């Protein structure tokens, strides 16, 4: 493994921060303003993608910027785990940029300048935490992400939006402070904060301290990852414009919490220590409960975005469960599910937004027969829906397969049962939407009349990506290899077989 000084991770973070400033100053010219977004998104993705070949070849790019506290740098390092998340987030941002243009202009939303600027800031923070080399840097970007999301959650400007914004802040700030406290504890017990594949804490620190650290971090990451009972901000946050729900509350922000668990388990404690402490079992239990309960609640929701939100809560816990099982296959499944769920869920949210912009409909019960009006959108929705349920040939199958294999490895037939049951529940709450849309008829829907191309094209791309991930997970951007490299780093295991 070779470590190289490289500024690309820094530029990848800064490009959208610079864009945010440019956006703020060009608010009067919407076309120019949106150009900055798109330019920044493309540049960011190109920078991230350019790191891929080197990382797969075993190189680690890093740069230390400035000391934050004695001995602790504001350090960036690109490793497979961070790259995996950064790739998916930055790629989906490009699509979200185009989608936002269609969505925000379609609804003639106010405060669009603020919207685009804050979205760009959120992406800076997200990429920042992907590439953080130590706990303190990670926490700093995590907190920036929390604060930068707040104006997006309260975008509607209604009394209800502010109430939800306050709830969001209470959760986010509590989580942030828990992380800061945990970081201070690690700093003084271990003397270092640098992430290390396989973990850097050891049992000598004492059970009480280790458990305190673990619980503080579990609280801190659990909020963003929507682990029950810390999830209730997430369905409420769907009051934000749909591009925010799609990119931040299905991909960037919530996956930041999940990614935090990856760092916690794989790079702070290490699977071995967590297994010995028994702490991972606690996390797995919470995750399993969340998967089942969230799926059941999703069944009862008539509001489409709320149903998708609970589905997100459930699927985030798939990843948390995979991480908490500690075995290589489960970790691989978790890493893949971060990507596949991102592609599928963003498709579903994009569809929900397109339907809302185009027809004003928000409720599942109003969607009968809408498939004739918007066939492409609903076809894409179908891909996402069956994909999340775990049907083969779509991305969700691959990741769930490894998660299932992992639960068998971990000896937890119980967890296997949870996965299978929730797969059924997934199908039960998502597939009927598609069948109703295509096979029922209602008065209200005219003949073919699709949403704006700004929305339909990104939807098509994400749906295609979901399928591609199911057929050949290593095809595009080599997600599978990156995930493998990440697991190999944490556990020392390499997988003989390639993609199924």
């Amino acid at each position: 493994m070779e470590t190289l000084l490289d500024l690309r991770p820094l530029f990848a973070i800064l490009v959208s921060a610079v864009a945010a400033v440019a956006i703020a100053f060009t608010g009067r010219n919407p076309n120019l303003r949106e150009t900055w977004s798109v330019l920044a998104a493309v540049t960011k993705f190109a920078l991230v993608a350019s790191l891929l070949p080197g990382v797969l070849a075993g190189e680690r790019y890093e740069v230390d910027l400035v000391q934050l506290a004695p001995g602790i740098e504001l350090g960036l390092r690109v490793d497979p785990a961070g790259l995996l998340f950064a790739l998916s987030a930055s790629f989906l941002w490009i699509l979200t940029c185009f989608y936002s243009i269609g969505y925000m202009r379609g609804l003639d939303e106010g405060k669009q300048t603020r919207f685009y600027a804050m979205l760009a800031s959120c992406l800076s923070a997200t990429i920042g935490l992907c590439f953080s080399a130590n706990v303190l840097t990670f926490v700093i970007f995590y907190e920036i992400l929390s604060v930068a999301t707040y104006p997006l959650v309260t975008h509607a400007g209604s009394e209800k939006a502010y109430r939800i914004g306050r709830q969001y802040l209470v959760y986010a700030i509590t989580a942030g402070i828990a992380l800061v406290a945990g970081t201070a504890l690690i700093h003084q017990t271990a003397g270092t904060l640098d992430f290390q594949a396989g973990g850097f804490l050891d049992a000598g620190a004492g059970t009480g301290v280790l458990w305190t650290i673990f619980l503080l971090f579990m609280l801190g990451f659990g909020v963003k990852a929507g682990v029950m009972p810390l999830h209730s901000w997430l369905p409420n946050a769907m009051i934000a414009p749909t591009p925010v729900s799609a990119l931040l509350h299905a991909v960037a922000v919530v996956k930041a919490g999940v990614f935090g668990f990856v760092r916690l388990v794989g790079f702070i404690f290490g699977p071995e220590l967590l297994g010995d402490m028994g702490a991972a079992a606690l996390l797995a239990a919470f995750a399993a409960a969340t998967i089942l309960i969230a799926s059941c609640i999703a069944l009862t929701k008539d509001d489409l975005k709320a149903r998708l939100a609970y589905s997100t809560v459930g699927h985030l816990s798939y990843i948390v469960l995979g991480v908490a099982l500690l075995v290589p296959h489960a970790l691989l499944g978790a890493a893949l599910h971060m990507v596949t769920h991102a592609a599928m869920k963003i498709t579903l949210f994009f569809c929900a937004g397109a339907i809302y912009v185009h027809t004003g409909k928000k409720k599942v019960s109003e969607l009968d027969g809408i498939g004739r009006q918007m066939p492409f959108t609903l076809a894409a929705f179908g891909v996402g829906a069956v994909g999340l349920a775990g049907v083969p040939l779509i991305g969700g199958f691959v990741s769930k397969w490894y998660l299932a294999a992992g639960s068998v490895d971990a000896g937890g037939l119980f967890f296997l049962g949870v996965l299978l049951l929730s797969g059924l529940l997934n199908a039960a709450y998502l597939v009927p939407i598609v069948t109703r849309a295509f096979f029922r008829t209602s008065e209200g829907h005219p003949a073919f009349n699709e949403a704006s191309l700004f929305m339909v094209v990104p939807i098509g791309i994400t749906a295609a990506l979901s399928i591609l991930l199911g057929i050949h997970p290593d095809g595009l951007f080599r997600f599978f290899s990156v995930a493998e490299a990440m697991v190999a780093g944490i556990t020392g295991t390499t997988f003989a077989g390639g993609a199924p």
Partner: protein
Amino acid sequence: MNQIPVLIPAILLFTSFAAFFGGMIRLRWGYAATLLGVAASFLVSMAGVAHVIANGEIRYHLGGWAPPVGIEWVLDPLSAFMVAIVTTIGLLVVVYLPRSARFEIPGKEAFAYPSVALLLAGLTGMCLTGDVFNLYVFLEIAALAAYALLAVGDRRAPVAVFRYLVFGAVGGGFYLLGVGFLYFSAGTLNMADLAERLPELYQSRAVIAAAVLMVTGLGLKMALFPMHLWLPDVYNFAPSASAGLIAPIMTKVSAYAIIRLFLDVFHPVFLIEILPVTAFIGWLAAGGILFGSVMAMAQTDLRRMLAYSSVGQISYIALGIGLANPFGLIGGLLHMLNHALMKGVLFLIGGAIRLRTGLVEVPEFAGLGRKMPWTMASFTIAALAMVGIPPTAGFFSKYYLLLGSVDAGNWIFFAIIIVSSLLSAVYFFRVIEMIYREPEEGVISEPAVAAVPAGAMAGGGGHGDSLPPGLGGGPRHDDRRSGGARPPEEGGEAPGTMLLPILVLAVLILLVGIFNVLIVDRLLEPVVAPLSG
């Protein structure tokens, strides 16, 4: 070069005279003298910081008289750090002052300028002197100037300031009494000599009494909970610029004096182990942090909220003293700088809001984000720093305090720092939410109209409500806009001379956060070195 320690207060004392006589002739000359003098003192103190980092401390004997007889002036990392804070805030407030003073205290500006210079002279003198009695002299100089600056505020300011004067006089008296005891026991007033002679006298009751009296006196001056009673009303009713000058630096210099006593006069062992003063301060601070935060949550007047928040924030500094270990004290010292920047900018922003809209009540702030975008962006940065969101400065002092609490194994302090961050998030995000709201119909224009009669009445010296303000009583609703003697000046963004200091402070909050290690490494590590032994 080696005159730097005495040069800074000397420049400022001279400035005070020049500003007074200049201002008698023409207001503009008074201001020019103040600006020049304070800018000069700022430059000299920056040179002092550079000198201390490069070449170590300077000890200057005034008039060539060696210490036991003459007065020694000391520029070491701690005093250089403190003087830099005082003069930086001083310079920025002087830039801000004329526009705000013309609006809030019309006709009294000529006396405000020399008072500002005198206040800064007193505070820098306290920092730089190496003599415990001389410190008392400058303490009183600063206090007198502060009374003047604060009392010209609101209709109820004089009463509040009188209470401050009583508290301040008692505090000064305690300190002086302690100095007397020390002089009788050790036979010297020089700090360095005291540090040498006192270890033999640690069992002496006079020395113990001296330590208790001096720390109590300074505790009163720094508004250490529960001796903070004078503070909320004073900051509430003061002119914005005075509050923006005094809230950031005045209480901190008293805290500095306690730290100076702790490290350089009494040996740390004395105040940690023989007479556990630091532990006691730590517990008072813990109470103060919670009390200040809870009280701030209950306020709707921005100035009063900031005043209570000051009680809590000063307690962070005291908590650093209470932890009495390297990381804890670094946290406390860094928080002096951070809080000076944050609270300074917040009070100055309060003044800008008042100038443009006449508003002081948070629930009426809707629409300010659109009206004054730069000012409100600065407010947001400062508020995030107060909550402790990284990478702003406020985060790092709290982080060091957390590290210090872990080192001390004090989990209660650890928990209190965490909880109080949450509480401050509650009251600061409430304001942020409000300023970025769209105003409902009529809300933004109506108070501006309503403020005219209230302002006119206050200007005429009479007001319908003649009841004296109750002890610690909150501001009454009808009174909230009586501070400005004029109706608010309509207009959008704050005027340039007010906006500039606000923006500079906001940028400093970010820079100090990101580059805090430069300060910690070069200036603060040497200060706390005696504790790590």
